[in-house]
């Protein structure tokens, strides 16, 4: 993958630094205000700073992963993001903490009370093929590296929680069969839907809320200090999957995509019905029993997932519906008009 197209001064500076250019961490940090934190410029900069530690970029400096200037900026941006997430989820977390008998109960209550977005119902009942393509392209930022952000936490937990998380990871990673790797199934779904399944192909087209949704996973999944939040995020993610996946599979069949598209979502109805139980009871329950101090962060992670994923789903839904007003625009999908601007 090539480094993405900058979306503003902060991402331009970070991307330039990763290419090996000059970078003034203090100046860029000062230009990263909390007010613009959730906008595409800062979120793309953070996504790029994380991505050097996943698949990397062909045109980045070979040692970009350890660029201390970028790491200094990343820490400042992460502190702002973490503070923002803690502030925006504090009511949800306080209410969850007050109820329930176990951490699994508390996460289940958070999931039950969380607001939803109309995106998956739209995909099920109304979306055109082009709108479906937009959805898949948007989700490809995560699903082509599905589960990779949740791997490092395995080394930060122990005992029954570690064993159960290893089981879940093994299932996400194909259960011993490369052709069943979930990221591979998603790539097949993309190709079947007529999309480019190259890793990172649509990064220049996705909007800020999608970047936030991806970045919180990397934030929680890259620091031992935040291991509880990584587990809580995974719990909420798995516990909000089966219903949406069932609707999306029905929509993929309705618009007549080849079977590989619905197959990815059918697999996730079945797998995530398992994962939900495993992550609530066998991972979070035992991890908190072994280390009660992480419980508040487990709730933070779960509340964050519910908050930012609904924001991303609502934003994408609104984009799809807005596109309906200006025919024959659906191929704004691939956001050619923005890439050209």
């Amino acid at each position, binding site marked *: 993958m090539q480094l993405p197209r900058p979306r503003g001064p902060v991402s331009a500076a970070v991307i330039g630094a990763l290419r090996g250019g000059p970078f003034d961490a203090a100046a860029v940090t000062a230009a990263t205000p909390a007010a613009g934190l959730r906008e595409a410029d800062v979120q793309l900069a953070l996504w790029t700073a994380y991505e050097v530690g996943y698949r990397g970029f062909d045109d980045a400096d070979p040692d970009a992963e350890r660029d201390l200037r970028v790491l200094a900026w990343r820490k400042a941006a992460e502190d702002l993001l973490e503070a923002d997430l803690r502030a925006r989820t504090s009511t949800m977390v306080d209410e969850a903490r007050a109820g329930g008998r176990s951490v699994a109960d508390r996460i289940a209550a958070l999931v039950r009370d969380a607001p939803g977005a109309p995106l998956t119902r739209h995909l099920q009942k109304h979306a055109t093929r082009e709108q479906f393509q937009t959805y898949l392209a948007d989700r490809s930022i995560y699903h082509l590296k599905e589960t990779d952000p949740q791997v490092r936490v395995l080394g930060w937990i122990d005992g029954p929680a570690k064993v159960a998380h290893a*089981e879940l990871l093994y299932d996400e990673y194909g*259960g*011993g069969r490369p052709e069943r790797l979930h990221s591979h199934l998603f790539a097949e779904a993309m190709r079947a839907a007529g999309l480019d399944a190259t890793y990172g192909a649509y990064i220049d087209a996705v909007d800020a809320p999608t970047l936030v949704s991806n970045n919180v996973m990397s934030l929680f999944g890259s620091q031992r200090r935040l291991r509880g939040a990584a587990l809580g995020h995974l719990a909420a993610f798995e516990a909000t999957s*089966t*219903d949406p996946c*069932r609707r999306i599979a029905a929509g993929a069949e309705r618009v007549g995509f080849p079977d590989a598209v619905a197959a990815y979502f059918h697999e996730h109805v*079945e797998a995530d019905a*398992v994962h939900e*139980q495993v992550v609530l*009871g066998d991972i979070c329950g035992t991890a908190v029993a072994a280390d009660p101090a992480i419980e508040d962060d487990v709730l933070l992670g779960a509340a964050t997932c519910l908050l930012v994923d609904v924001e991303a789903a609502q934003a994408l839904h609104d984009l799809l519906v807005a596109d309906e007003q200006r025919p024959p625009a659906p191929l704004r999908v691939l956001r050619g008009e923005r890439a050209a601007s």
Partner: protein
Amino acid sequence: MTGPRPDRPDRQARSDRPADPVRVRLCPGGPLLVRGAQEVLDADGVAHPVERPVVAVCACGATGRAPWCDGTHARIGPRR
């Protein structure tokens, strides 16, 4: 229990060792989590091979993917 399935050569190696015990955990209001089984027989006696490290067997009767849980219990059930 059936013998090793041809598409899972790893099972072959295991078949001459004593099998791990099958472990079942009841999820209140939801499925049975089953570890260590090779197949699950549905109500009609049809065998469904186990292809994941853990499976969730529907215990509420409302799933659309029998014998596996598909999450429907959360919409029908008393929340315990």
